[in-house]
């Protein structure tokens, strides 16, 4: 068992490495001079050359990568091209915000998808199943940014119950924090629940197919509540292991949602980096998101293996 865990861990490092190389190359060949972006309309050719030399942009890519990676490993993500402020502290401030957003959104999605998915599974091939499956498709088809705009229009502008955006740290003002997180997490949660409902439904169906007859016989009188609880308990594990893949999609969607709701996480930082051609910022933010997804996948894989070594998640 430990061997399996170590193997899984061992494959994490090269994956991380390759991902970082891909990102680095992708970012550094983005056309549109970073120098001009930083220096503005009056930049002279000398100023541009000075800038590029100062930031080592005129050296071979491989060398630049090694230098960046070495510093990144100890948390030094360089300085922003725009204002020469260190990127690391900003990343450290923003990652928890994105994590909070993603986590709460995932919880919302679970709250929606577990009851609905279970309902569909229990009522397989009957009316409720069709309704729920259609609902799942409905949720999954919703564009998150449009849903976000609708929510803002309704709850913030018309009703005035919630702020149009922004973020307040929980430690500063818990109520304001929750108010600010409500709409973004609901938007993300609803869209994610599309897939999760189906996963739950499938899990419930499979558990029922495997266990139902046995359980019913062994317990004699089929106690509805006992059976239901039993099935649910067994379905949660496959649900979570497969569903955790959706968490990766969710983290990707935060790029848009953070932009719409002006939440200072690493998602919105990616866009800032692109618009300004601020390579250090873009790289650090994109890398952070990728690392979060990779780590979640890793943790879920490990958890799945420990709980049920039979359920090795290959080919996902």
């Amino acid at each position, binding site marked *: 068992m430990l061997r399996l865990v170590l193997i899984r861990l061992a494959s994490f490092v090269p994956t991380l490495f390759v991902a970082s190389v891909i990102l680095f190359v992708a970012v550094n060949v983005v*056309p549109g001079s970073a120098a*001009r972006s930083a220096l503005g309309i009056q930049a002279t050719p000398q100023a541009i050359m000075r800038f590029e030399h100062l930031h080592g942009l005129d050296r071979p890519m491989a060398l630049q990568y090694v230098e960046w990676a070495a510093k990144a490993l100890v948390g030094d993500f360089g300085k922003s091209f725009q204002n020469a402020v260190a990127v690391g502290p900003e990343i450290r401030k923003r990652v928890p915000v994105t994590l909070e957003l993603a986590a709460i959104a995932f919880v919302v999605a679970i709250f929606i998808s577990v009851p609905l998915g279970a309902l569909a599974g229990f009522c397989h091939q009957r009316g409720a199943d069709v309704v729920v499956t259609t609902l799942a498709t409905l949720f999954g088809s919703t564009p998150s940014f449009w849903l976000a705009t609708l929510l803002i229009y309704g709850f913030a502008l018309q009703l005035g119950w919630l702020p149009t955006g922004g973020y307040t740290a929980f430690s500063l003002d818990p109520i304001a924090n929750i108010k600010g997180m409500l709409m973004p997490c609901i938007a993300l949660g609803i869209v994610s629940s599309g897939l999760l409902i189906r996963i739950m439904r499938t899990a419930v169906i499979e558990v029922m197919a495997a266990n139902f007859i046995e359980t019913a016989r062994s317990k004699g009188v089929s106690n509805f509540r006992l059976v239901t609880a039993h099935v649910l308990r067994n379905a949660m594990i496959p649900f979570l292991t497969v569903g955790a893949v959706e968490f990766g999609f969710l983290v990707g969607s935060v790029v848009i949602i953070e932009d719409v709701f002006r939440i200072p996480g690493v998602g919105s930082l990616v866009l800032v980096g692109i618009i300004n051609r601020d390579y250090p910022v873009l790289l650090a933010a994109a890398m952070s998101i990728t690392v979060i997804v990779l780590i979640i996948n890793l943790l879920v894989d490990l958890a799945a293996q420990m709980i049920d070594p039979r359920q090795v998640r290959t080919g996902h």
Partner: protein
Amino acid sequence: MRLENYLRLGFVSLFGMAIGAGLPYTVLAQEGKYGGTLVTAFSADPGGFDPARGPSGMSHVVIEQIYGTLINLDADAQPYAGLSESWTQAADGLSWTFKLREGLTFHNGEALTAEDVVYTFERIMPEDSGYAYRSQVETIDEVVAIDELTVEFRLNRVTGPFEIYMAFPGSSIVPKDLLESGHDLNAEPVGSGPFKFVSYTPRDSIQFVRNENYYETGRPYFDGMTYRIIADPTALSNGMKSGEILFSNEVPPKDWNAVISQPGIVNAALEGSRYYWMIPNHEKGPLENKLVRQAIGHALNRQAIVRGAFFGQATPILGGVIPEWNWAYAGLDVFKPEGDIEKAKALLAEAGVVPGTPLSLTMVSSWPPMMSMAPIIQANLAQIGFTAQIDTMEVPRYWDEVWGPSKFDITAMYWLSPLADPDDFVTNTYATASSVSVHLGGTEEMDDLMLAAKSAVTIEERKALYRKQQELSLEDMTVIPLVNGWVLTAHTDRLKNFKPMRTGFLKTLKDAWLE
């Protein structure tokens, strides 16, 4: 009895005189209320706080609060004494002598003397200094400290806008000793201005605190200021409407009416120095013919552009680009606000040009007014027979791929002149060769005129020369002026004594207070 009366009268008179003498004092003391933090909002992050390096407008808005300059500009862009209490210009115009105030200090307590002034300018004058506004200091041969409080600038050419240049944030006096000890001014600015730098959190805010030792006693009034950075324009407007933001001069035109109709908000909008113009590439087909350029100039419906791209908050430029509030305004109205298609067509006929190949209209996608203008311009061009195809590009790629190599048929640009001097309005735009002038056209005659106007000694001389230049500019139609987009300033009615500046700068905040 009489003596008592006299005594009483005398006593009352004395008392009255005392009060009378003291009255102005009490009135002055009541004039400004101390305290409070002014929360303002801007849309962009600054690029650094070293006057020699800060290239962006946002950097300057910070620099002007933290540093001092030899001369300041008031709300109408007229120079008045800053760090120097007086200055003189030599009769031949080739040298300026400044007398510094006594007892000036930087925020770290160090004295500000002529040495710092010399150091400041020697830092930005060299060709390889990387200073983006070198054209302002290129006529300075040397800067000499005559004594501890006197500095002399020796020029190699008469420089009309010299006082304006001395008031420019890039000319802010920096602390020599601090810099020589290796301090990074770009990250932690130390100056002699009304406010001290506290902190900068990227994409969030910049904090200032009052400089208790500011040389202008009694100023500033605020305890501190917060410059919030709000990239989304709608969020900025919402912040103003909700009262969270007390001041902004970057209110987006689309929300202007909604913001100023809120109770408790004061409209301080004014026409400034932000103008937009269309740039035809003089090496592209029909555009090399000045009659064709004139035709395009007349075909444009500037009224529609004001309405569609600026929601009414702009002035159509009907003649030269120097605006009406500036002393060099020439009042040469040649365009009709709604355009004149007949005249445009007549000009095309006179040029003998029949529009054939489509032209590309390349606009920067990140600037909403440009994007809104593009279809209007396209429609106007279609009316005189030109098919224009709209290409868009985001800012960073635009600089490299369109602007720098002049790879466009027609493009558009805007400029918010930070100086109020007419030279800054015309030189970069019309010159035959400059990093801002990419039209690949222009005439030597205009170049000479602009140089002469910049180097003339008296305002009257300069005014006449700029008039001539503007006449020529409309004849040559090197670029096509569009509109002047107002500086949309709005603030809470609790803010008193604030005078908006046409350049969009905020030096006058030091004279304002919060009730």
